[in-house]
Each structure stands twice: as structure tokens, then as C-alpha cells.
């Protein structure tokens, strides 16, 4: 999906539906690969059988139904949530470096989960999700309150606040072995084993927030032009901004609560797509919801097969896919174009 030629704006406008179709096809292919590839390779025939004609005694069918399919769905949801969250926050702050992680969402969620685990609250999936979202809301609100006047201060506040939360939660974890044990698995940023928990609540939350993002994207179009212009165009800037912030924290908080901290998906995907969507926020959000899952599924599949001895956490793969892309973009277009 990254190899599409950088088209000039007029052709990009007409090419957007084509990009969407190609993206959906690629997403389908990535989904099939994600279900079929792994420590136990499942032939495509068995794959179809597992879906259409389930046989509880067939090992392949069991793997597909109980492990691979939930994991693939989770990957799609997390990828879409992170990418759309990134697209929204970059549009809202008009800052191409803004990423939920940089604004403290990740560490906010981690902090809330640590405190919750230390107090014995983080038992169920619902309470974990609640803690993750609450932590990210709090962190984002504080960072935004301190840093809203300038881009640099926003980044600085995000980094500083993340550091404080990181330090405090590390301190809590070091004193309480139980908390450390719970947190250790979360902190790696992986989809492995996460499919075994009850995913209904986070998936529904992410799905609802994605729909909300598509609805609000049209109003964000006006805000992307600047607040004064947005006012003259009749947009209710304050309400749109609040709603968008809520959506961002729900998306990023839920994804982080489920999968742990995964960097770069929220930064890279909207970044690559901005040139292809020629400034339309609804298209940016829509395409992010398609390309984010592709990146996530590809990274997760690579993570499974990279080493014979065991899985690599997917966050490590996304870092090594996303890092070079970011460097390439900065070198190609310069930091000013970000």
C-alpha cells in the first residue's frame, strides 16, 4: 500500500475511489494471510472449510476458529483504531507529528492500568477498557490544557507528562510484584494471547468510535482550514473539537488497553495517506481505517513467522516497518512538509 505513486492533486482526487478499492482488496488478502499463516500453516481449502463447514475434531479448523480468526479481527480493530485516532489528532492539532502516543495517551492508559492492577480493579475486560480509556482521557486533557498554544509546547508537555506517568507507574510496579506480573504482558505491545480474553466490549467501543469518526470528519474538514475560517463557515468549533478529542481517546485508549503500546501506526498511516487524499478529511479517515488494519495484519503475520523459536511482539515489527518510513518521508519531503 505504500508503493502507490505520489500523484498530483487533480489525479489524486479521481484516484481516491480506486485507492479505496485496492486497499480493501489488500486488506482482504492480508486478512486471509493472517488467518492462514503461523506456527501451524493452514491450507486455503481447510480455511474455507473451517468457516463454512466447521468440524470440531479437525485441528486446523480449531486453530482457525479459536485463535486465528479472533486475532485477525482484533488486529483489524486495533489497526483501524490507531490509524484513525492518529488521523483525527493530526487534523485537529494541525500537527503532522501528533500521535496519540506522543500526546500521553499510551502512558496515561499504562498508568491507569498499573494503578488499577495495584488496587485490584483490573480483573475483567470491561474494567481494563474503562481504566485504559479513563487514563488516556485524563492524560490527553492535561497535555492539551498545558500545550494547546503552540505545537512545540504540546510535544514538550506530552513528553514531560508521559515521563511523569511512566516514572510513577514504574515505581508502583517495582514495589508490587503482582502488578508487575500483570503489567509485564501488557507492556510489550502484542496481539498474541490477547484474543483469548473477552473482546466484545473493546471491539464494540472501537466500532462505534470509528463510525463516529466518519460522521465527524466532514466537520473537521472546516476546522482543518483554521479556526477563523471554520467559524465563518458556520462550524461549531468547540463542539467538534470536544467530540473529536473524545473519539481520539476512546480509539487510542481502547486499542492500547487491549494490545498494549504500539507505536507508529497512528503516525505513519495518516502521514502516507495525506498526499493521496488531497486534503479531504473524510477520505483520510476512511482510508486510514482500511490501511491501518493492513499494516497491523502484515506486521502481526511477520511477527509470527519471523523466528522459528517463537513470536516477536508485533510492536517491535511495527517499529521496524514504521521507523524507516518516517525517516524516508522526512528525508524526501523535509521536516517542514510533515
Amino acid at each position, binding site marked *: 500500500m505504500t508503493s502507490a505513486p505520489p500523484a498530483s492533486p487533480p489525479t489524486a482526487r479521481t484516484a481516491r475511489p480506486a485507492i479505496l478499492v485496492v486497499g480493501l482488496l489488500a486488506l482482504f488478502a492480508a486478512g486471509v494471510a493472517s488467518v492462514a499463516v503461523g506456527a501451524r500453516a493452514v491450507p486455503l481449502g481447510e480455511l474455507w472449510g473451517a468457516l463454512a463447514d466447521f468440524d470440531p475434531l479437525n485441528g486446523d479448523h480449531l486453530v482457525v476458529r479459536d485463535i486465528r480468526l479472533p486475532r485477525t479481527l482484533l488486529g483489524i480493530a486495533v489497526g483501524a483504531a490507531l490509524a484513525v485516532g492518529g488521523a483525527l489528532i493530526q487534523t485537529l492539532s494541525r500537527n503532522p507529528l501528533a500521535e496519540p502516543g506522543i500526546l500521553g495517551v499510551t502512558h496515561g492508559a499504562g498508568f491507569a492500568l498499573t494503578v488499577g492492577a495495584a488496587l485490584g480493579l483490573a480483573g475483567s475486560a470491561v474494567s481494563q477498557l474503562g481504566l485504559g480509556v479513563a487514563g488516556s482521557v485524563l492524560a490527553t486533557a492535561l497535555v492539551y490544557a498545558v500545550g494547546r498554544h503552540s505545537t512545540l509546547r504540546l510535544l514538550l508537555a506530552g*513528553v514531560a507528562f508521559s515521563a511523569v506517568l511512566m516514572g510513577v507507574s514504574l515505581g508502583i510496579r517495582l*514495589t508490587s510484584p503482582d502488578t508487575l506480573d500483570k503489567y509485564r504482558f501488557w507492556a510489550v505491545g502484542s496481539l498474541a494471547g490477547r484474543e483469548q480474553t473477552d473482546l466484545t466490549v473493546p471491539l464494540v467501543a472501537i466500532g462505534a468510535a470509528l463510525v463516529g469518526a466518519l460522521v465527524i470528519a466532514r466537520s473537521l474538514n472546516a476546522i482543518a482550514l483554521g479556526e477563523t475560517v471554520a467559524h465563518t463557515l458556520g462550524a461549531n468549533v468547540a463542539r467538534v473539537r470536544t467530540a473529536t478529542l473524545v473519539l481520539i481517546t476512546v480509539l487510542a485508549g481502547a486499542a492500547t488497553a487491549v494490545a498494549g503500546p504500539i507505536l507508529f501506526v497512528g503516525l505513519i498511516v495518516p502521514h502516507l495517506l495525506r498526499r493521496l487524499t488531497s486534503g479531504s478529511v473524510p477520505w483520510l479517515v476512511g482510508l486510514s481505517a482500511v490501511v491501518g488494519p493492513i499494516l497491523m495484519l502484515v506486521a502481526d503475520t511477520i511477527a509470527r513467522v519471523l523466528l522459528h523459536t517463537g513470536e516477536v511482539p508485533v510492536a517491535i515489527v511495527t517499529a521496524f516497518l514504521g521507523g524507516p518510513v518516517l525517516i524516508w518521508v522526512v528525508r524526501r519531503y523535509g521536516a517542514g512538509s510533515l
Partner: protein
Amino acid sequence: MTGTQKTGETPVLERTSTVRVPVGGRAWFVQRRTIGLVVGCVVAMLGLGFVGLSYGTSWATPGEVFGALTGLEPSVVIAEWRAPRVVAGILFGAALGVAGAIFQNLTRNPMGSPDIIGLDAGAYTGALLVMTVFAGASVTVAFGAVAGGLVTAALVYSLSRSNGLSGMRLVVIGIAVNAMVTALNNWLVLRAELEVAMAAVGWNSGSLNGIDWEDLVVPGVVIAVLLTVIGLRASALQQSALGDSIAVSTGVPLERQRLLMVLVGVGCTATVTAVAGPVMFVALAAPQIGRRLAQAPGVPLLPAALTGAVLLQFADLVAQMLLAPVSLPVGVVTTAIGGGYLIWLLAQEVRRR
């Protein structure tokens, strides 16, 4: 290492906000505010140092501390256990503060500090590789950390150099490199044997636990040399803070200067990392706190060094006291304190508008 600048404490002219200090036929003009900062920081360092010498599982009385320092009343605990730790806090804090100030000057961006652009993580990678692949001892681990820091710095620097150096580009590329190197570190820890992994993770938080005089000799000499080198070039550094063209026209060899700055900055970061592990956030916060305290334009080195020393010393005391008898890694506390203070400063700036 504050000895070279202590001449600033002798006020000569009382009229303006700057003070004229004659140094070997030339005159230095020192901001009065800077002098206040120097005095305040030295007092804070002495006070914290005294508490650091007294504090332990049993408090030492002031008499015992002075006795141990003067040698009248020898005490292994104070002279051999607590004193190196106090000195390490000052020395490493100053080194990290200067390293941060150098990189923030170079990139003209507070985010351009070594811990953000991946130098700490790179030094950690070097140390990890030595620990896991070569099963090295502490000397080779230190060497690996320095090598890792240098390689990462070279990578970031060369990737962000195409027709001139842009600070923002360096920061963004540094963030990308940092993320990749951190991922590599996580993977190395996951792949390592359990015992190596435990040691590596413990080291990763940055700690002054168990430092003795022997650990301090080599880093002490290296840091002293690096700080002297950069101290002698301080005026040229100020010229280049005014902008590349002004610096060149006032006779600063810009390329050589940059290389020197990078080498000193990386040297300081990697030396500290090699001994104490990556102590996060001092390099980012100390120069920013220092320049606000000194109300200085740009990011001056001296306030950064002093603030860094006080910050790390204070953090180490808190790390020892907070959950006594368990001693936390100091990196945990530096992130919390430094970050908290930086947020407060940012909030103050917002309120003033």
C-alpha cells in the same frame, strides 16, 4: 567541575544586571542572575550532599559526617559507600545536563536532547549486545555502551544531514531511530537468558546503587576532560547560537565546532549510561529548567550543568528514601521529578500569556 566558573562569584560592578569579571586581561560579563543561580546550586549541592552522607539505614550525626570527611573518625559506610554515590550524582548530573544543553543548542529544539533522539537507547543496545552475545564483564559493557551511543549518534547525524542540518529533521529522525533501537532492545531482552535479562532490565532503569570509588575513576576523568573542552569553547558556542551565518562571519569554524559538540555530548551521555544505565530525562529537563531559572536566552551550558547536578542528586536521595529500605532506580525518580517540574514551568508560561 564548577571550579572553573566559580570566579563568577566575585562581584565587581554593582550597577547593571551584568557583572564584569576580569580573567587574565580579558573581561567576562556574567549575568547577575547566573551568579545567583551558581551560588544557589552550589548551596543546594552541599546541602543535599550532606543529607546524602548522613542518610542510610541509620542516620549519621553531623559530627560523624565531618569526622569521616576529615579522616578524624574513619567510617567505611560514609567514606566508601555514601560519598561515591553523592559524587556520582553531582558528576553524572552535570554531564547529562551539559549533554542535553549541547544537543538542544545544536538542534535548536528542546526535544533534541540525547534521551529523545535515541542516544541512551543506543548506548543500552551496545551494552545489551555485549552482555548477551559476548557475555562481557563490566569494563567491556561500558565500552559497548560508548560504542553503541557513538554509532547511534553517527546514524542519526548522517541521516539528518542533507544540504545542511535542520534541527526539526534531526529530532524527527532521532525519534524514529529511538523507536527502532528501543524495539531492538526489547527484543534482545526477550531473547536473552533470564538471568541476563534481569540484570539488563535492572540496569535499564538507571541506578546509582552500589557505585564505589573505583567505578568513578575513569568516568570522572573522561567527564572532566569533556566538560573542560566544551567549557573552553563556550564563547564560540554562544556565537553559533546566534545563527550559522553570524557564527561563520565572526570566525567560528562551524563544521569542526559541530563535530566537537556532538562528540562531547555523546561522550558525556555514553559515559554516564555505561556506569549508571540510561538515566532518563535529566538531559531533557535540566537545560530547560536551567535556562528558565537563569532567564537566559538560548540554552546556556553552566545553568544546565548545575541544574542537572542538583536534579540528579535530589532524585537519588528521593529514590533511596521513598520506599526505604528498598532503593528505587534513580531513573524512575528523575522522570517523575524532572517531568513534573517541566510541566509546571510550561503551565506557568501559559498562565503568563
